[in-house]
């Protein structure tokens, strides 16, 4: 049980997909201007990432490996992810048009969010079983959402700050992300504790 907990917490905090692995920076920068959209993006990504890790595990183990088609892994993962993203997009467009418009291009771009492809591939590389894969996927997704929301909170505040002109906008956001990453280094070694 603790083993699973460590996987989950490790993925959320210690090996945070954005701040430690530096994956998925595109939506992290793109949709963190407002708290509301960050929540939406976090939820969408969490959904896609969790489902994608599960689906890719199934595809990998029951379709690709039995037939020795491991070389199709990246391709089939991408296709699956793309389909899930499409589905998510339709659901969001139906349920929250404003969120759909606000997320804009970043919503279909979840497809190319390297975190979403990276996590299933890391699962394969780490030899995680199904439950571990799901937990790792969910943990990474929660970690992504968490820092996205925190980042949005900070950016909303920086919005009102008297930031030097040349550093306004994305520049100061990148610096902030760097400092956040620094703070997250505090978790280093926690998952190694026995």
């Amino acid at each position, binding site marked *: 049980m603790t083993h699973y907990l460590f996987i989950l917490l490790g993925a959320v905090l210690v090996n945070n997909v954005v701040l430690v692995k530096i994956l998925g920076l595109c939506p992290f920068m793109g949709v963190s201007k407002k708290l509301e959209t960050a929540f939406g993006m976090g939820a969408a990504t969490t959904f896609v990432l969790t489902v994608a890790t599960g689906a890719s595990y199934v595809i990998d183990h029951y379709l690709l490996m039995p037939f020795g088609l491991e070389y199709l892994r990246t391709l089939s993962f991408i296709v699956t992810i793309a389909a899930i993203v499409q589905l998510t997009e339709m659901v969001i467009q139906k349920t929250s048009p404003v969120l759909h418009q606000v997320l804009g291009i970043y919503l279909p771009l979840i497809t190319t969010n390297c975190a979403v492809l990276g996590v299933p591939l890391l699962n394969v590389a780490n030899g995680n079983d199904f439950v571990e894969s799901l937990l790792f996927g969910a943990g990474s997704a929660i970690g992504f959402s968490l820092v996205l929301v925190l980042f949005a909170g900070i950016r909303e*505040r920086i*919005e*009102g700050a*008297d930031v030097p002109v040349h550093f306004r906008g994305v520049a100061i956001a990148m610096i902030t992300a760097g400092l956040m990453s620094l703070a997250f280094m505090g978790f280093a070694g926690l998952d190694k504790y026995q």
Partner: protein
Amino acid sequence: MLQLFKFKGGVKPQTNKTQSVGEPIGVAPLPSRLFVPLHQSIGGTPRPLVAAGERVLKGQLIGGADGWISAAVHAPTSGTVRAVAEHVAAHPSGLTTLSVEIEPDGRDEWIERTPIDHGALAPERVRERLREAGVVGLGGAVFPTHGKLTASKTVPMEELVINGAECEPYITCDDLLMRERAEEIVRGVGVFRDLLQPKRVLIGIEDNKPEAVAALQAAAAKLGENFAVVAVPTRYPAGGAKQLIRVLTGKEVPSTKRSTDLGVQCFNVATAYTAWRAVAHGEPVVSRIVTLTGNVERPRNWEALLGTPLAEFVALGGPKPDTDGYLMGGPMMGFAMPTMDAPLVKATNCIIASSPALFPPKAPEMPCIRCGECAKVCPHELQPFELYWFARAKNFGKTQEYHIFDCIECGCCSFVCPSRIPLVQYFRFAKSEIWAREKEKNAADQAKARFEWKTAREEREKAEKAEKLAKAAAAQAAKKAAEAAAAAAGEAAPAPAAAEAATNVPAATNPPLDAEAAKKAAIAAALERARAQRAAVEPKNVDRLTPAQQKDIAEVDARRQQAGIEAPPTAPEESQP
């Protein structure tokens, strides 16, 4: 003993009240000119009822209340109206407002005054009397008093709170009024009590005014009124209506509600006094008690006529040479008077002459360090530093999320801010921007509705016009055919045809007026025909044609007719107007 409640926050600035209570209320002499602004209360702007050159008596109506929430304005003394024109207002902007300029004749002659017995009259009549007498809240908000004297239909009126707290530093006009005219105040409160029928009447006075408390207690006892005169702890802004209601009743009135919804109503002591004068003496509000203090030789309270120019008023106190400006109201919520011409108005409770020693220049504004002092002292428990953060960034949506409209602009936050940020200014800025936006939004909605209505109407008209035109064209074609036939038949006598065509035109331009659409169609048709006519008369040189040329033209016309082309409807000679 009444249980008192506390409001959170508040500050304790130096009160500086003792300077101006040494002398009784003085009656200010008649000024040489009075500038009475017509708009002196919340609500509709009263209409001017006098014209330049007219003679007015003291108390004569010069501005009639416009709408129910509006209060009348009266001539403060007898004299001659010199002008009804724009004059600088008692307003921080220094902008002008429509004012009646009166030159006093020195006789101070009252118009006929008719007291009423408020107990014998219907409540509506009493409220109307107050409206006609221009009785408004004299605590500073100048809300028409009659508008507050109707109890809520659903919530029983529990407490009537009378505000004699006077928490702002320097101001002592209510203090002196309570000391000297306690009986009339109590009688005025009695009028309010009769109209609202509350269960209790509570008069709250800050405990730094023991004389006023004693005077009111004595007056209430003498008149046999069961009013509780309560000394409340001295802490700014205890005199804010909502704070005083909180302290005396424990009720908190949110910005989204009126106090009557919670069964409370609050009036200033001076308002009660003027209400009694209006009811029992038939005197409208033409003067008020104004504290003149600060950097003057003789700080004192004066009963001054409304409309007295600032320059003449401050001369009564003898401003010291280093005076560098005048504040209207207290140092916490008042504003700098724009010019010395600005008049005293119903809202003017105090004039403070300022000097660099009294109000030293402010330290430069530093960035907010979010220390939270402002939040600690905010009587409405807001987070001023957050409001500031968003107001500064002009993020008005966020300021509303942080309840900017609950801010009463009491100035406590600015008072304690270590960064010396003009917080109140930021909040006022944000509020007025939001209001302006609201107005724009309403205007936009209205414009949209009107545009849509017009578009719909045009669509309908177009359809109708098309129909009409089709009919008209058919009729025209038939007529033309007939005319052409007639013209062809009697080429030698074109005059009748011309006459017929001439009568045709006016007939077409006078369609029935009731159908607008038909009219438009007719106009269009007429225009069309006029153009055709003009085209026809194009050759202006036709009236001096040689017979040979005429013959040629006739031939051409004949050929045209043979070819089926219409002949010119009128003969060239007669078509000249």
